[in-house]
């Protein structure tokens, strides 16, 4: 179905509809788990039941004897590099001598039926010598190394201004953030098709090219013999940035010479991807009596789990955002990411900043109380502005409407009194809360979040635009994970080229990298690439029209679906002007360079920043310890609303994930063992938990951004969490220094 109806055109700024929406509602959209091939085998993974153990022996002979089994592979069968990783390649494709976390892959099988796979896995005998796991991140730093690379994944200090500065008012606290799961709905799945020593992998991922680099190295193949095609992605949120089943699927396909499909179940998914880092944070703020921040001190210990993944970058994000969206001239901050025998942690929406924000926003409320100042007023007094110096010495040169975010959030209406419907009370359909016991509270959270990759990394993006006879064809490797880049790309082309006939070519590795769909970066980066490619094509189109009519091409412009002479009467439909030979250009967008931090944590390490404020209203039953988040009001700094409907969707979705971290979501790990790897025991917000969301979009176009728009994906889940916890504190008087807030934290 076309989304361009009548006179409405899907240009930038409109709420154009998703081009894949009609397939998605009809169930005809191919997610990677929906793919199949003739003669296909199923793959499955054997995982360690122990968080830390030596492997004495692996006997696969009984598994190979199970009828229907085509192959069993272990570390011995990995033809190339035995390890992979986004930053450090320290994670084995299969454990060889030692397993370092519960769920680490040990072997994989390919067979004719998932049930045959299950029986084959059960027939593999692994003899383990169980070791005492290292499970506390702080003690891991000095404990005997559990990996040849040591237990310190990263350490960074930030010393800025006068480290000895003090204030009249000092507040400090210890904070703890639990391990959150991305819990995308579409489980890990891939289909590998072998072809004479080459392989094509259809995969739900966030970054096709980075996957390819890691897969090819492990397979011992040149990259041009590994082709990746994006399978439909059922959500990501960071969990698809690392390798999960990619290498295993390709390896089984190459070994058997047959197509192999792998897909995880929900339990396996909890073991198959990284999670949000649990963190312990100590923070101390010095301020003047009128609440102006003089200095921040902080210590972060983040649990990276068994392998590095993106822990080094997550740690840097955490420590460099310790000041929050507030001016702060002096800082002494130190952070560690530790290796433990807990599940590996890596990227999740907010990427280290979620953890920092829970601490700094809890601190700001303590400071407000200590100074006798309203929580909103103290935030306004300290609000960062464009031109301020950050604790890294980086000048804040993004548009920084922090004060406006706070004021516009405060201007949104408060919710009405608790309604009488018991479904709306804390406990929802459990009907457990008595209205007379319910207490209402209000809390605030404000945050800053970096956009794009940092520390000198050039995460560029490519796109190709082809125009012929009015039809625009766009090619990019940008992973569409649900965020709506497929909608935005069409809007960019419709706007710049005056065409309503915009088709998207398959997303695969047949074009240059688009970088990862993460770090709130694709609107800026891939948007910039599509914008650049369309502009180059438009220039050629104008040259063609100009030469045909003897005009200066600079006089030409796109008006609606026509090329027009801005100084004359000429008006040619784009479809007519672009008849004949196709015009095609590829554009590679780069953000400005960044730098690594020095030993004092100084350096322009981030590209740009976005800001947001959240005000939460909660109803709490203090006796039962249950919470209903009634309303979240928010004003978000988005630069420019390229698609308001998509922006609202990101805001509401991010807030729900922030709510989850605030009051229900936590992977429980005891002695290195995951206790709740299921949707029965890992609780996610449902429709009954969803708060009313009131959102104001603050549109101050960002001059650095190609389309004036900032990324909008991460900020909603950064400060919604501390806002909700502050509201629970307001309702109950409890200190609440950890998230998620559990019933026993409120009622016991």
């Amino acid at each position, binding site marked *: 179905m076309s989304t361009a109806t009548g006179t409405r055109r899907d240009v930038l700024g409109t709420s154009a509809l998703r081009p894949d929406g009609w397939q998605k509602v009809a169930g005809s959209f191919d997610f990677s788990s929906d793919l199949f091939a003739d003669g296909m085998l199923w793959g499955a993974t054997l995982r360690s039941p122990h968080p830390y153990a030596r492997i004495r022996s692996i006997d696969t002979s009984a598994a190979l004897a199970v009828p229907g089994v085509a192959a069993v592979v272990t570390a011995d069968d990995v033809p190339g590099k035995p390890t992979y990783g986004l930053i450090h390649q320290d994670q084995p494709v299969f454990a060889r001598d030692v397993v370092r976390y519960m769920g680490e892959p040990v072997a994989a099988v390919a067979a004719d039926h998932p049930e045959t796979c299950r029986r084959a896995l059960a027939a593999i005998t692994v003899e383990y010598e169980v070791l005492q796991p290292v499970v506390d991140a702080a003690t891991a730093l000095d404990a005997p190394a559990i990996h040849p690379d040591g237990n310190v994944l990263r350490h960074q200090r930030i010393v800025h201004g006068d480290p000895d500065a003090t204030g009249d008012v000092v507040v400090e606290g210890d904070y703890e953030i639990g391990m959150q799961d991305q819990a995308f709905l579409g489980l890990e799945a891939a289909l590998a098709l072998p072809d004479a020593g080459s392989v094509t992998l259809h995969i739900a991922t966030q970054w096709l090219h980075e996957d390819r680099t890691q897969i090819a190295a492990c397979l011992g193949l040149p990259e041009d013999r590994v082709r990746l095609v994006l399978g439909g992605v059922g959500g990501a949120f960071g969990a698809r940035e690392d390798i999960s089943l990619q290498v295993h699927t390709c390896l089984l396909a190459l070994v058997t010479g047959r197509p192999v499909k792998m897909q995880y179940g929900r339990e396996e998914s909890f073991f198959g991807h990284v999670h949000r880092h649990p963190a312990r944070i100590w923070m101390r703020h010095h301020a003047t009596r009128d609440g102006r921040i003089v200095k921040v001190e902080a210590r972060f210990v983040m649990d990276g789990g068994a392998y590095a993944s993106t822990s080094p970058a997550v740690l840097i994000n955490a420590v460099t955002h310790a000041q929050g969206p507030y001016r702060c001239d002096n800082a002494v901050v130190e952070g560690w990411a530790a290796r433990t025998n807990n599940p590996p942690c890596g990227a999740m929406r907010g990427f280290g900043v979620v953890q920092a924000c829970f601490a700094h926003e809890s601190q700001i409320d303590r400071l407000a109380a200590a100074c006798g100042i309203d929580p909103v007023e103290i935030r306004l007094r300290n609000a960062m502005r464009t031109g301020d110096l950050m604790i890294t010495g980086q000048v804040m040169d993004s548009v920084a409407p922090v004060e406006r975010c706070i004021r516009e959030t405060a201007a949104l209406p408060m919710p009405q009194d608790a309604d009488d419907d018991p479904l709306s009370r804390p406990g929802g359909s459990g009907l457990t809360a008595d209205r007379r016991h319910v207490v209402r509270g209000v809390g605030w959270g404000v945050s800053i979040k970096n956009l794009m990759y940092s520390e000198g990394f050039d995460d560029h993006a490519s796109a190709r635009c082809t125009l012929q006879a009015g039809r625009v064809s766009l090619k990019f490797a940008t992973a569409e994970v649900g965020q709506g880049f497929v909608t935005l790309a069409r809007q960019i082309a419709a706007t710049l080229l005056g065409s309503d006939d915009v088709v998207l070519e398959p997303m695969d590795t047949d074009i240059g990298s688009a970088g990862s769909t993460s770090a709130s970066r694709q609107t800026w980066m891939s948007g910039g690439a599509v914008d650049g490619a369309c502009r180059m094509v438009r220039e050629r189109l104008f040259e063609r029209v100009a030469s045909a009519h003897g005009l200066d091409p600079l006089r030409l412009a796109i008006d609606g679906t026509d090329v027009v002479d801005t100084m004359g009467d000429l008006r040619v439909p784009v479809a007519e002007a672009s008849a004949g030979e196709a015009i095609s250009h590829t554009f590679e967008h780069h953000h400005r360079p960044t730098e690594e931090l020095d030993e004092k944590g100084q350096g322009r390490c981030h590209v740009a920043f976005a800001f947001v404020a959240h005000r939460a209203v909660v109803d709490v039953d203090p006796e039962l310890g249950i919470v209903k988040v009634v309303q979240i009001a928010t004003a978000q700094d988005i630069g420019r609303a390229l698609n308001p409907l998509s922006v609202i969707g990101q805001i509401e979705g991010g807030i729900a994930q922030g709510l989850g971290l605030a009051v229900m979501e936590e992977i429980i790990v005891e002695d290195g063992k995951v206790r709740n790897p299921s949707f029965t025991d890992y609780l996610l917000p449902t*429709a009954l938990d969803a708060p009313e969301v009131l959102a104001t979009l603050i549109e101050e176009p960002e001059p650095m951004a190609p389309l004036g728009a900032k990324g909008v994906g991460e900020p909603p889940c950064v400060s919604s969490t501390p806002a909700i916890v502050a509201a629970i504190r307001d309702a109950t008087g409890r200190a609440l220094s950890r998230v998620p807030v559990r019933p026993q934290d409120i009622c016991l």
Partner: protein
Amino acid sequence: MAEHYTLRVNGASHDVRDAWLGESLLYVLRERLGLYGTKGACEQGECGSCTVFLDGAAVCSCLVLAASAEGCDVTTIEHIGSDDEPSDVQRAFVEQGGVQCGFCTPGLVMAVHALLDANPSPTRPEIREAISGNLCRCTGYGRIFEAVDAAIRERGA
């Protein structure tokens, strides 16, 4: 494994041969009948992605043994509408922004059809309760509520 039974799905009969009797209805719909519109995301009846109608009642197909559905009428998302001819609920999901990654969407569409067929004018709490067995990780449910409201308006018009 050599078993044989018949499933009636979307009005048509399908022979299921040589199937392991432990297969769920979800597995058989997808992997044996090629009806991939029904999704699986938890295998425990927690997420609702696999919602189908069994003799008109919304059930989680991951919790139903396929062989036990012999003699029942099974209705899947493929019978509700198509890309070109969406149902009112499906249209509302697209137009109101209720779709992001879309993985939960077929199950939610089934749940909303079940709700509105039983109760054409549900209250907001009734809507929330009715779809609270369907997890969505992308949208935060706000645009899904808008979609349900739009479908109700259209049916009432």
